[in-house]
């Protein structure tokens, strides 16, 4: 029997970072609010309430689709996907069926440094459902409570082609997609809280065979790791079925983190007939070419291109360049440091090392760092110039971060330019003696007042950061008046 090959396609749901929900004025931000407080007649699905399309959500979806190289048809519409579930207050989800906002693109991603491409079938827009809180375990709970704060949050669905060939590729595809969404500013990339969700379709077939095998849909994977683990499990499970002469059943399976296994949820026979039909409460969407071009013009630099540019422009290492462009705010911080004169590689090291650790501990995003890029750049320059040691620099950064002060100011106030920098100081001292031979001679011969101009010259040569006390001491020693 020929070796089996996996065929994998991912469906990703991303909540959009709009201010309001998809079809009403309630806030799209729903976490941490009292149950059912972020609701109105429309998202509660009250009889008589009607949806109104969120323009910003449409724009974000089109922009994402453009970044994925999709076509944007001029005509699009919303449809109703009908099914009963307690978290779906209307008994249908407003989604898009046969005329989505976009079609046919692709996503570039890398696996072990090798560039791959995966087709994108479509990117469309729909609304999220509410959430259920079961009193105990779902199948034995006496009751479940419904919270509709999330109901109606804009949800963008990115359907990938079955172009992935191994479980290893899946998280890499998803990472690249997540990074793109972050750079577009349309999604917060949080898989744990479910603002970014991923389902996978996987089938196996003998290598070389064209037809696809029977596909299984896998759900409930809320991290890159569980995505890969679930797919690896499915490869093993389906291989065993096929190799023992059985057939894989078309079904939906859920990943169980506890059991580290997928569990059957619904067979093909039980599959729902969603009875899609055009949403009569919403007129069809005419997407003007002007809007498409305006959105295309506002696209940020694609993350992979940004990474390559920064890597080449600043001679960064491969991994360093990848990390610095993970999120747009990281890249922005880095570029601001470089613009402020920090040597790029050091800038990247400081940002990815000490600064990122501080931000993580303080649960602060880098864009809200108390030490802005310009100030960290100044510190890096001092360290690079040998004015302070790396150790001192890091210590000062910790304090500056905590106090919300400028690191360079702290260094100056505390005279932290160290003795270990004596060689540089010595050079400035020698320079000052050469520059002011008369003053040097006067001081050597006992005129204390001649020291002032010499110290001034040292400070001037140092750009104002030389510690004047240390300069005086070194000048005394040099001019034979040490120990006095």
């Amino acid at each position: 029997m020929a070796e089996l090959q996996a065929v994998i396609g991912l469906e990703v749901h991303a909540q959009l970072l709009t201010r309001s929900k998809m079809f009403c004025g309630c806030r799209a931000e729903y976490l941490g609010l009292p149950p059912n407080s972020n609701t109105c007649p429309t998202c509660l699905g009250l009889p008589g309430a009607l949806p109104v399309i969120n323009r910003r959500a449409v724009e974000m979806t089109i922009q994402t689709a453009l970044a994925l190289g999709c076509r944007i048809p001029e005509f699009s519409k919303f449809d109703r996907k009908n099914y009963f579930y307690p978290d779906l207050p209307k008994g249908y989800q407003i989604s898009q069926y046969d005329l989505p906002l976009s079609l046919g693109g692709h996503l570039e991603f890398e696996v072990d440094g090798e560039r791959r491409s995966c087709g994108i079938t479509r990117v469309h827009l729909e609304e999220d459902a509410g959430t259920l809180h079961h009193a105990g375990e779902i199948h034995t709970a006496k009751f479940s409570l419904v919270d509709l704060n999330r109901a109606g949050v804009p949800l963008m669905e990115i359907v990938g082609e079955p172009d992935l060939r191994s479980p290893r590729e899946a998280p890499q595809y998803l990472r690249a997609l997540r990074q793109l969404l972050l750079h577009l500013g349309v999604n917060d990339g949080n898989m744990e809280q479910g603002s970014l969700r991923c389902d996978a379709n996987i089938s196996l077939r003998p290598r070389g065979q064209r037809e696809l095998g029977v596909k299984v849909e896998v759900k409930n994977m809320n991290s890159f790791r569980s995505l890969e683990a679930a797919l690896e499990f499915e490869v093993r499970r389906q291989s065993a079925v096929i190799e023992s002469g059985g057939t894989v059943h078309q079904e939906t399976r859920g990943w169980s983190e506890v059991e580290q296994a997928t569990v059957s949820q619904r067979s093909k026979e039980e599959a729902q007939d969603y009875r899609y039909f055009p949403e009569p409460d919403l007129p069809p969407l005419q997407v003007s070419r002007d809007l498409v071009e305006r959105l295309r013009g506002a696209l940020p630099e694609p993350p992979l291109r940004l990474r390559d540019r920064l890597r080449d422009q600043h001679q960064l290492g491969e991994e360093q360049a990848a990390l610095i462009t993970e999120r747009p705010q990281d890249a922005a911080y880095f570029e601001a440091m470089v613009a402020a004169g920090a040597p790029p590689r050091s800038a990247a090291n400081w940002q990815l090392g000490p600064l990122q650790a501080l931000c993580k501990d303080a649960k602060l995003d880098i864009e809200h760092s108390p030490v802005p890029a310009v100030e960290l750049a100044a510190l890096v320059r001092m360290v690079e110039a040998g004015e302070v040691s790396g150790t001192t620099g890091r210590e000062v950064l910790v304090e500056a971060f905590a106090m919300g002060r400028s690191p360079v100011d702290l260094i100056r106030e505390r005279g932290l330019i160290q003795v270990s920098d004596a060689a540089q100081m010595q050079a400035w001292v020698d320079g000052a003696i050469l520059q002011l031979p008369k003053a040097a001679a006067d001081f050597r011969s006992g005129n204390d007042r001649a020291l002032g101009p010499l110290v001034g010259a040292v400070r001037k040569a140092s750009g104002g950061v030389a510690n004047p006390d240390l300069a005086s001491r070194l000048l005394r020693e040099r001019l034979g008046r040490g120990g006095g």
Partner: protein
Amino acid sequence: MSLLDLSISELGRGLRAREFSSVELAGEALGRAESLDGRLGSFLRTTPELALEQARAADRRLADEADPPALCGIPIGHKDVLCTRGVETTAGSRILEGFRPPYDATVVARLARDGAVVVGKMNCDEFAMGSSNENSGFQPTVNPWDEERVPGGSSGGSAAAVAARLTVAALGTDTGGSVRLPASFCGVVGVKPSYGRVSRYGVIAFASSLDQVGPLAKTVEDAQLVLSCIAGPDRRDSTTSPAPVSDLAGALREGVRGLRLGIPREYVEAGLEDGIKAVFESACRWLEAEGAELVEVSLPSTEYALAAYYVIAPAEVSSNLARMDGIRFGPGEPQAPSLLEAYELARNRGFGPEVRRRVALGTFVLSSGYYDAYYLRAQKVRTLVAQDFSRVFERVDALISPTAPTPAFRLGERTHDPLAMYATDALTLPANLAGISGLSVPAGFTAGLPVGVQVLGPYLGEAMCLRVGAAVERAADVWRRVPAGFDG
């Protein structure tokens, strides 16, 4: 003689002249409802406290404002599919018993803004599905002209109450004729605005692509005053037309001289009762005498319209009513062994037979494998029906026909024959499929029962409908007739 016999403009003059107050007027309407509605069953509930509060406010406005709105202080009833804040709204269905919406429908809010006084919620067929009002989950409404007959449906409560002078005007909804048919059966004016002319926000949906709210009133002018108040774009309903509302009041005075009116052959050639035919023919003669030119036209797709309607409307019903699932609305079924059975029990108990029939029908026609054969085909027929109308409106200004092939029929006469009941709407529902404007205006009587003439105008042609309707009304001169037993 009751104050409720007067037209809105007559009442307006009396209110402004302080001959009577809005509180007195509302009191008289509620008093009549109290004493007379036991026979009719037109109200699901009266709203005396709300009415008193609104009437007091209206009296203050009438005293304070130089030019209060025409509807200020006028009693009005709302079909029970219209959400009224804090007032139970059931759409005539047991499954919504106890539902007090936290918000007002846009039309309710607009009438309140103009000072109209809500006297109650009007009975209707369950979720507006029916042509006789016998499908109400609570009670049938009867026809004030003959209490053994139906008032028509689904806005039967609204029509009967206006005819019996229990309210000055009422709102109804028209999905396939649900305003025009009861207007015809009860001898009042009923307007079905073009789709998108009036907001559906807060209107409990029957079939979203067909529903429109329209007024029922004693006169064309009264209907126009209510329509002018509720019509126009609403940002909460994306299907409303952005076009400004034309001068509807002016249209009433224009007359029909020089207008070309079409009579659709398919509407008059088969199945009309003789009495209906006679009234319609006299209306035609009046219009000609007033200077209109009458021409025969053809709407060839008419014969397919009924079938298409009974695919599209149930399809939307099956989805629109899914939210009535026993979890938020309807009797909860906590003892059900599974979620699916909880849904089934709640919906079987909460919905009446006609609603269940349409949900089943709609679910079927949208099912995978049947969608193309039914829903898609019906949508194509719908396009053909709309094209028929566009074509004839290139040649004529409006169409006229009887509103229904028969006058009001007896209670129970068609309840066991759904297809006969569906056929009641044969002359009205094509206008809903096409989204055009229409009205029914009383034109006379046959065997003591009112007969209405239907006027259909182009999309956003409400002014034309009112113009022709006013001419029929002037010639017929029947609007002051009050059903026996309601005239004191």
